[in-house]
């Protein structure tokens, strides 16, 4: 039982999460978030999956959208709610503690115009990815957009090598510090198509080629 305790001592606190991510991505995370919600505006209803500390949810709400952010981690949501406190758009955001498997209980069918997920899919198993995409499809109204940002394996031998080495270090650090294992998301466009989406474009956002944003939409008539 004590191994568990040991692990909890090592586990990073949600308070440090935002700074850690910003640092690790050299500011790339902020730019990626801006790009994800570039065409979100008033009248949009956004479901942000794996909302974490709520950065993306608040950004979307700041542009006038109604946002539902869900996350399974209560500690992260506590930080998100704290940020919500005196935010001008706080009236348009609700945070719900729910995992991917509870999407069917939290998100109404066809009620959303945008579904976003940032750095969630790399934490999911292949089954969970399929499930999340199917549920996102259900929750979206026809024509609704799906925007996913995550880590992937770069194309090209040299980039893969650099990425592999960097990742080896990160895997070791993350195993020791936060006990979180993530795996790069490969083949997401195919999975999205299998779920019924039409994929509009996939953009690689960093020079190493290890980070992407995928835009897709649910067809108007199935």
């Amino acid at each position, binding site marked *: *039982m004590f191994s568990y305790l040991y692990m909890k001592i090592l586990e990073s606190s949600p308070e440090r999460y935002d700074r850690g991510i910003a640092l690790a991505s050299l500011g790339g995370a902020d730019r990626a978030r801006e790009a994800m919600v570039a065409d979100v505006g008033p009248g949009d209803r956004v479901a942000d999956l794996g909302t974490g500390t709520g950065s993306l949810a608040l950004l979307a709400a700041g542009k006038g959208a109604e946002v539902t952010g869900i996350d399974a981690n209560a500690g992260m949501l506590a930080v998100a709610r704290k940020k919500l406190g005196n935010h001008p758009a706080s009236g348009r955001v609700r945070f719900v503690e729910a995992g991917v498997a509870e999407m069917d209980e939290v998100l109404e069918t066809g009620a959303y115009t945008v579904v976003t997920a940032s750095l969630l899919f790399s934490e999911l198993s292949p089954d969970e990815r399929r499930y999340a995409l199917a549920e996102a499809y259900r929750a979206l109204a026809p024509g609704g957009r799906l925007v996913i940002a995550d880590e992937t394996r770069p194309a090209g031998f040299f980039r893969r090598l650099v990425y592999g080495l960097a990742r080896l270090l990160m895997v070791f650090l993350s195993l020791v510090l936060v006990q979180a294992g993530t795996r790069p998301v490969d083949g997401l466009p195919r999975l999205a198509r299998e779920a019924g989406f039409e994929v509009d474009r996939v953009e690689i956002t960093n020079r190493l080629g290890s980070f992407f944003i995928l835009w897709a939409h649910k067809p108007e008539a199935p």
Partner: protein
Amino acid sequence: MNRVIAWIMGFFFRWLPHRGQRALLAAGRPDEHSPVLVTGNYTLTLRRLFRDIRGRDAWVLSADSGGINVWCAACGGEFTHHQVIQAVKTSRLADKVAHRKLILPALSAPGVDAGQVREKTGFSVRFGPVRAKDIPRYLDDGMQKTPAMRRADFSLRHRLDMLVSMNFIIWLPLALFFGMFLPSAFWGVTALFWGIAGVSYLVFPFLPGRTGYIRMLWVLAALVFLLVAAGTALGAGPLSLWPWMMGGAAITVAVFFDAAGIVAPMASDAEAMLFALGIRRLGGLLREKTLGSVRHNPRRCRACGRCMDVCPLEVFEKDPETQKIRPAKPRACFSCGACKMQCPQGALELEGG
């Protein structure tokens, strides 16, 4: 490569979690009628489960336990009905099997609310044997458990398994320090360390004392006695080996830090100490429940026997005449919380000890 890492993690670094895949996995060639065995995604757990059911056709549903073993994760709130429900739903299990039954490890009972799983997924939960090696016989006997299958015994084999895997990570920094700065003492320290750890793990169940820390005193006394005797025999005076006494004492304290929680069906001393120091919460662990023993409310009890089914220490007993259940061995209870979690009547509470 992954298998080598998994083996090293499982054998030497068992204090650290190691995540295996979360998925619906096939053992043999399962079909829609095959049993579904649910377990946590700790690589060692998965490997041993597959080894123990070799030759059987079954589904293995590996749910998220954070890469921690089932018992620790269930007690610590990492492996609960939430993770089981998630695994059942995201794997689309309902489309793959015709029946609606899950078999869970008995030691997951402290964390998994069987009622919740049934309500959210339509699958009913049965708690199987404590050890995976009993699963084939359990399946052959129509999912009936013998008393031995219910019992978590901390046998010699279990203790030897724990000896290396739990103490390696304590020995490693010692070895690095002495290897680099005092190479002449390296082998002496290593022998002393594994000697103390080995003897402690072997004799632990036979030492008198209600807690692990009290039992530690016997080992300390024996250590001092032996070193005084050795010093005298060498003609250098009874306290001439004092550096070894100090070092040995430190090693003993380190080995016993949580020994009770590892090698015996006893409450964790380390947890109790933190609790006493005023640390009341650490993740899901050290909830108020952790320390104390079970209290049974006979007026609420409907004698369904679920507590008897999941208790790993046979604390409960059914009176053959009145058919009522009572905690016959309350002192054996180390408050894992399995009975409380499974009791549908709320007839069981854990009392602070």
